[in-house]
């Protein structure tokens, strides 16, 4: 089968790989019909995530058709079209039992801090991902969810990660009716977080980025205010002023380790790798939220350390909530939102690229060429 193949920082190609097999009685094999490239893949692509081995296949946002099931799979059958959540979860450990499906303890031996994630380095379990024609999916009865008949598959593929992550970012913000919510990052995740902040009753939603085409899009799509941090000098001061010198009620970091905007953070975080990526957005989030406010982090950072003003977290009495999205937990509610037309995930997709052109797709998305917001890869075996 054809699969994306990582060769080193900013070098990928497609190659022939062996077909995935059932390796555990609860596995299934899925023929991928769509898979996305995510902002999280940029951290891998840039070589920021330790134990990213040459020859790995990325891809944690995919849907497909069940082709084969293990002897202990009972809820799925061959031929089902499924949404595959990006986290691999057993459903039985103490963490899964609390619906912390992003923190499963039975899906990754290689780190205890993170559960198994498809196509996300050996630090997240060493699974081959879905940027391929086929993928092995463990615990097939737990994560994969049958796509409702009425649902457009372009919506379905975004339910694997972007929608639940954006929604959970807003949820963890503990938004109270009328709150001012500031979101750093107008990527797919940040834009979805802005959209979802309204569902929780936000009174004012502000999104910050430096790419005008994304800000323009966000303003329309998420009906929010959108500002370019490059035009405001000091973003923290700007946000203080625009909240009557009080600070935002909730700040969301939807940027993570590949942030721009501070030379010190970029040099120490991305060039010298003295910290686990650049924590610029988190720094701004902590400093722009009100005293006693909430910072919700969904932007991904590496496993070592980052430079953040922890003293201000203390002095301001902040609550910090963060997690990998617990996709399975949120799917029923999110499917309802899509059905009712409250969320329109497929509106985020800007590029459809054949799997064979994966190298170009990565470059376009990472370098933000051609006003790219969300690329979807389509394997030639998608239609069979």
């Amino acid at each position: 089968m054809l699969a994306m193949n990582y060769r080193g920082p900013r070098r990928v190609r497609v190659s022939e790989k062996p077909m995935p097999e059932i390796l555990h009685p609860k596995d299934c094999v899925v023929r991928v019909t769509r898979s996305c490239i995510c902002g999280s893949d940029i951290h891998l692509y840039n070589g920021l995530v330790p134990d990213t081995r040459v020859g790995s296949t990325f891809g944690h946002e995919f849907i497909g058709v069940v082709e084969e099931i293990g002897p202990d799979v009972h809820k799925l059958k061959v031929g089902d079209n499924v949404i595959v959540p990006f986290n691999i979860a057993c459903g039985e450990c103490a963490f899964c039992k609390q619906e912390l499906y992003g923190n499963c303890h039975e899906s990754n031996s290689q780190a205890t801090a993170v559960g198994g994630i498809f196509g996300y380095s050996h630090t997240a379990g060493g699974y081959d991902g879905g940027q391929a024609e086929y993928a092995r999916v463990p615990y097939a009865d737990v994560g994969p969810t049958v796509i409702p008949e009425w649902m457009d598959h372009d919506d379905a593929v975004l339910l694997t990660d972007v929608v639940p992550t954006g929604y959970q970012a807003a949820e963890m913000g503990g938004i109270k009716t009328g709150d001012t919510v500031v979101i750093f990052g107008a990527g797919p995740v940040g834009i979805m977080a802005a959209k979802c902040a309204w569902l929780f009753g936000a009174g004012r939603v502000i999104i910050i980025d430096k790419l005008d085409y994304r800000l323009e899009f966000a303003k329309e799509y998420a009906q929010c205010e959108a500002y370019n941090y490059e035009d405001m000098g000091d973003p923290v001061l700007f946000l203080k002023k625009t909240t009557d010198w009080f600070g935002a009620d909730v700040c969301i970091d939807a940027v993570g380790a590949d942030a721009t905007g501070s030379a010190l953070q970029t040099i120490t975080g991305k060039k010298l790798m003295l910290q686990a990526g650049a924590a610029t957005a988190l720094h701004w989030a902590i400093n722009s939220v009100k005293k006693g406010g909430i910072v919700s982090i969904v932007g991904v950072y590496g496993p070592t350390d980052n430079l953040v003003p922890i003293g201000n977290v203390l002095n301001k009495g902040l609550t910090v909530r963060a997690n990998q999205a617990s996709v399975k937990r949120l799917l029923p509610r999110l499917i309802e939102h899509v059905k009712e037309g409250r969320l329109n995930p497929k509106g985020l997709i800007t590029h459809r690229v054949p799997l064979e052109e994966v190298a170009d797709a990565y470059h376009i998305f990472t370098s933000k060429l051609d006003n790219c917001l969300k690329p979807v890869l389509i394997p030639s075996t998608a239609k069979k």
Partner: protein
Amino acid sequence: MENIADQYKHIKGWGVDADPTNEPTHPMKKYTGDDHNRINWQRPALQQYTVEILKSNERPTLSAVNGTSVPPSGLSGVLRRYAFKFSESSYGHWLPLLLADRINVVEGIIDDIKEGHFPNIPAERGIAADWKYNRKALIQKTVAMAAVSFILFTALRSKRK
């Protein structure tokens, strides 16, 4: 509340998930108390391995399932195994892994050549996309690189004379 909802009529679904009782919210809300049983839950069946899987020393056994892509090999593999002697809290774990990742890139090129495949690095970096959407920058970069190479080349040659 009524009043404020009126203000947001233009936003479909505004406030439908507002729930003042949802506090503290995720990741806390489904707390079961089972945490005090520690890791003694009924485990899923264990995957049988035919490849080497490294294990964090912060857990006693392998997790029930794991990915099997790219087992450790070569010099990078030696470093990766060494890294797993240290906990996830230690630089002794992460720095050797990052170094191994870089060595692995060179191993990848050597493997490619051994298999008779010379990697097309510009294509792997997506140069076709640059040509399509970023042509000006690509040309500028190429011209600058050519100029630097030319200057270096002539400087070296004149030195030799």
